[in-house]
């Protein structure tokens, strides 16, 4: 670790929002990892006779849902689903968006225009509607959910990386590397890209938050993972018609979503203050 990174970490350590975000994200990761050990009940094999038990009754700390499943256990297991979707979709968005933006920014001219108009097309679909249309064609499944949420995330990475590469391209060290005979793939991916890493890390962190939020929205409209899988958005949807009578089954998964997303947002904002010189 170089001195720059160490200084960044020190600054991060002095920010209360970084600590708060880190704590929330840490809890989220820990819960996702240890869900089977922490959950008092099987999240899917509830007892029909125990439907809509209020919190604290019969060994159900957060009550049971419309199918008699333990809400607490489902919320814990839901963290796994959300984390899986978040990681997979952000990885996909980065894997497509970063090379796209890097090549567009470095090549410039017609190729740049062509690639970025493609990105504009993706951006023309408002909100989660693109994901909705993809999911409605492919049908509910965890894999397709990751794909749909990932596709929505591509433009942000492509634009960020393109802007970064454009700014770096003209700098002396790039000219020097080119003068030494480095060819474009090496210049783009080995010389320039490591210097654009800060904003990418920020984007990935914030992207995890929006992926969790989008996946929950898709789950809510009935386009989540396979039926029965513990997933926060789908769980809210499942209990929505009974929420006046059994608010806990709707409130609890929502608190989990908000806490996880807030954690990523806090951490992402703090990282931006430290890593992204242009924004501060």
């Amino acid at each position: 670790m170089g001195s720059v990174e160490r200084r960044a970490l020190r600054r991060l350590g002095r920010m209360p929002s970084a600590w708060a975000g880190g704590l929330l994200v840490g809890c989220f990761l820990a819960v996702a990892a240890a869900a089977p050990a922490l959950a008092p009940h099987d999240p899917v094999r509830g007892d029909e006779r125990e439907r809509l038990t209020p919190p604290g009754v019969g060994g159900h700390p957060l009550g049971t849902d419309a199918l008699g499943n333990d809400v607490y256990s489902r919320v814990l297991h839901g963290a796994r689903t959300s984390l899986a979707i978040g990681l997979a979709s952000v990885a996909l968005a980065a894997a497509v968006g970063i090379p796209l933006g890097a090549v567009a920014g470095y090549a410039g001219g017609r190729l740049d225009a062509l690639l970025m108009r493609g990105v504009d097309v993706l951006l023309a679909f408002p909100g989660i509607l693109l994901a909705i249309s993809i999911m409605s064609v492919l049908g509910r499944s965890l894999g397709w959910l990751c794909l749909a949420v990932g596709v929505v995330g591509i433009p942000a990475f492509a634009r960020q990386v393109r802007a970064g590469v454009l700014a770096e391209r003209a700098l002396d060290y790039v000219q020097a590397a080119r003068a030494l005979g480095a060819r474009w793939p090496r210049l783009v991916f080995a010389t320039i890209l490591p210097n654009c890493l800060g904003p990418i890390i920020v984007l990935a962190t914030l992207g995890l938050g929006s992926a969790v939020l989008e996946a929950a929205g898709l789950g809510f409209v009935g386009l989540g993972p396979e039926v029965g899988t513990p997933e926060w958005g789908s769980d809210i949807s499942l209990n929505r018609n009974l929420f006046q009578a059994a608010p806990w089954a709707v409130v609890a998964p929502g608190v989990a979503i908000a806490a996880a997303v807030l954690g990523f947002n806090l951490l992402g904002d703090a990282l931006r203050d430290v890593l992204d010189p242009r924004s501060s």
Partner: protein
Amino acid sequence: MIGFVERRLLQALLVLLGVSVVVFTLVRLTPGDPARVALGKRATETQVEEARRRMGLDRPLPLQYLVFLRRVVLEGDLGRSYRTARPVLSDFAERLPATFELASAALALALALGVPAGVVAGVRRGGWLDHACQVGALVGVSMPVFWLGYLLILALGGVLDYAGRISDRTVFAFQTHFYLAEALARGAWPVAADCLRHLALPALALSTIPMAVVARITRSAVAEVAVRDFVRTARAKGLPARAVVLRHVLPNALIPVVTIAGLQFGYLLGGAVLTETVFSWPGLGTYTYDAIANKDLPAIQGVVLLFAVVFVAVNTAVDLAYAALDPRVRHGVR
């Protein structure tokens, strides 16, 4: 050399073409043979073959795309909803006004609360209100909008005597589908009050994210303008602090706010899909939700196409308005 306006319009047109390609691809990716779906399970192989020819499904894909494009653009034909058995476009005509009312109300709320909050936060940076706004904005953007809807019903549903649907819809016989606007225009105050009661909570839920964004942009714009020389001059002249902010700082800070507000419109359309269902607001969001629940693909794809067109149109209009206000944009100066 063509001007900024022409270039921007051309760009919007290209994006819309791209959008149509994406939607067409999704239509074609849809599992199941459309001809067989249209005829039902008991159709014979020859009937299906005949239907395929009639529907143009035997032609090469690029040609099918052109036919699709011509139908959508020239005839406004988005297909027929499986669920309502009506042309998707007439369903839209019925549902879009309500969504428009909801989105407008949410945007109005976001501006009415977000701008003052951002101004105060920007003028007194580091004050308690600044911190409160920042925390509030961060929490606001982290909550799922539909979940917030349920929380609002739990908290305020009793106060507002909130009861599902607009009750007078059948009694009152609306001529249009702009419920609130029509009730107001016809002077039917009890009906308007009822509409307002039903609109208040979804609009509040939907407004949180735009409100947070508006407050954040206003804050930074105000903070940026507040240190300019003309503000110092105004203050040196002896103008009261209030007048300096209202007359000199705010007008100069509002340009980016207006742009962002326009761009939030797209979010509002997507958010409406998640919010309307919670409150049974009879707009396109509820329509989309029902379409998803019934695997009504023509309706879903129609909604997506329509929202994308509206979104691109709004973005283009915002850009053009921005250029009209700021000559630097027109001439490509950064």
